[in-house]
């Protein structure tokens, strides 16, 4: 199983205003669900401005799980993608 997933969250004001912060909470809360993450598995959250997406007020929030970029991302979409990657055999 994969040990680490990197999630990059755009922290511009438009993304924050359209739910990026709440998605970050949802990701952080995954570790509190018993039995979901295995020992040693880690979700790394990185926040930055997606410069290549500028300006992107019509597609906020923009979030990448590893290399896959989600536009108009939702918490359910992102957490599902994270869990699927963590289940992948390496």
């Amino acid at each position: 199983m994969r040990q680490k997933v990197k999630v990059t969250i755009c922290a511009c004001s438009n993304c924050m205003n359209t739910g990026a912060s709440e998605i970050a909470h949802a990701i952080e809360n995954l570790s509190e669900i018993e039995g979901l993450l295995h020992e040693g598995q880690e979700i790394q959250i990185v926040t930055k401005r997606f410069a290549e997406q500028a300006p992107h007020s019509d597609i906020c929030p923009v979030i990448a799980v590893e290399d896959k970029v989600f536009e108009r991302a939702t918490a359910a979409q992102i957490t599902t993608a994270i869990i699927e990657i963590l289940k992948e055999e390496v």
Partner: protein
Amino acid sequence: MRGIYTPVTKIRRQVFAEIAKFGYEGGDYSVIEELPYKIIPGQTPSYRDSIFVERAIVGERLRLAMGFDLRNVEEHAPISKGIEENAVDQKQFNLPLVNVIPFACNACDETAFFVTDNCQGCLAHPCVAVCPVSAVSMEGGRSVIDKDKCIKCGRCQDACPYSAIIKRERPCAAACGVDAIESDELGRAKINYDKCVSCGQCLVNCPFAAIADKSQIFQLSRALSTQRKKVVAEIAPSFVGQFGPLATPEKVIAALKELGFCDVYEVASGADLCAINEAEEFLKEVPKELSFMGTSCCPAWSMLAKKHFPDVKDHLSMTLTPMVLTARIIKREHPDAQVAFIGPCAAKKLEAHRKSVRSDVDYVITFEELMGMFAARNIDFGALETEPQQEQVKVTAQGRGFAAGGGVAQAVMNVIKETHPEKEFLVDYAHGLKDCRKLLTLAKAGKRDGYLLEGMACPGGCVGGAGTLQPIHKATASVQKFAGEAPQNATENEYAKLGIKE
């Protein structure tokens, strides 16, 4: 539902961002009529029976966000009705602050207990045995509650081994600590303004987005756009961490300047003065003149005492609130400027409306409304250049700590311990209006004599205010961390000693 991005959150924030944008750009007022179509696009409804109702509700929310009254549903009127008089760069505000949009209300049932399909019709059926008024019986192999007999004590719910009995409450009424939510003739929520203290918790908890408070972002955005007068921002201590991980305190100050504010002050400076004054007042008044003293800074707590506990309303401190004290510092240093208070609180809008405060504070907006302004101006926290903030007033850890529950009393206590180490006294706290009521009931009964009482209407203190964006535990942690970075304690606050109190 803080910390969860729902369609309610989405619409509310879109409305703030659009109104802020409209305020900054100005121009043809008829544009406002198009906004419901932008916010609710398409031909089919998403959440209600009709897309026209969804847009009409957004129309009312747009009006409230511009500070206007709701329209009379029985008369034709455009969303922009009254805009000519209100599209100005100064505060426009008429009571009431908190409004139910009647046709957005789901007319939820008032509190009742229901037996669900989880009922197994068990042999024990303890629900029947524990009911003190014989309202629960077994019929057709399952438990049944007689609503006419039920006194809503909840014992049946507690006793059921299958969690088959549920309590259904109106979320707005459950969140209201002063029982101000009543029903109109159609069963829809109606606010009893004689009881309401404007804490705003009903609007945070309504899952149908049927309750909203009036905003001043439209007029504030106009003022920042026209720059006819300088506007100084005073930002409440709970701002830390509210605007996302890139929005450090320095970046928030830079972002406020980007919005057009000429200067930014931390309300923590007024909080320091407030603590010093309240400590002096406590030492002077308790127990000689007053049997106990309540803190003054939460306007909903003060209103609770005035409306619901008139016998003890004079036991609340007379010290000016941190918002007003900071505004007075600002007006002394910037006599021609307007002052905008930015905080977590809905009730501060009413405090600023008081005759004695109107000349001090010109606008009040919440963090959520400010986020709408940031979004409207495409503020990029990552790209903002920060400059060393000129320190207008030194602030202390205690001043910054006002935002978290217990922080005010702690600050006052520290001042007293520093100046009068021999003084012995007790402190009690309450956060959330229901607990505030309990505390004042005890105090009124003489069970808190000699105490300093801190009352905060919102759960967890100001960090749980109706206008915040972050979950309470995260906001509390951010406030505590930021407070820890402040260099001084309250009594070493040089500025306070240098005459601001005068």
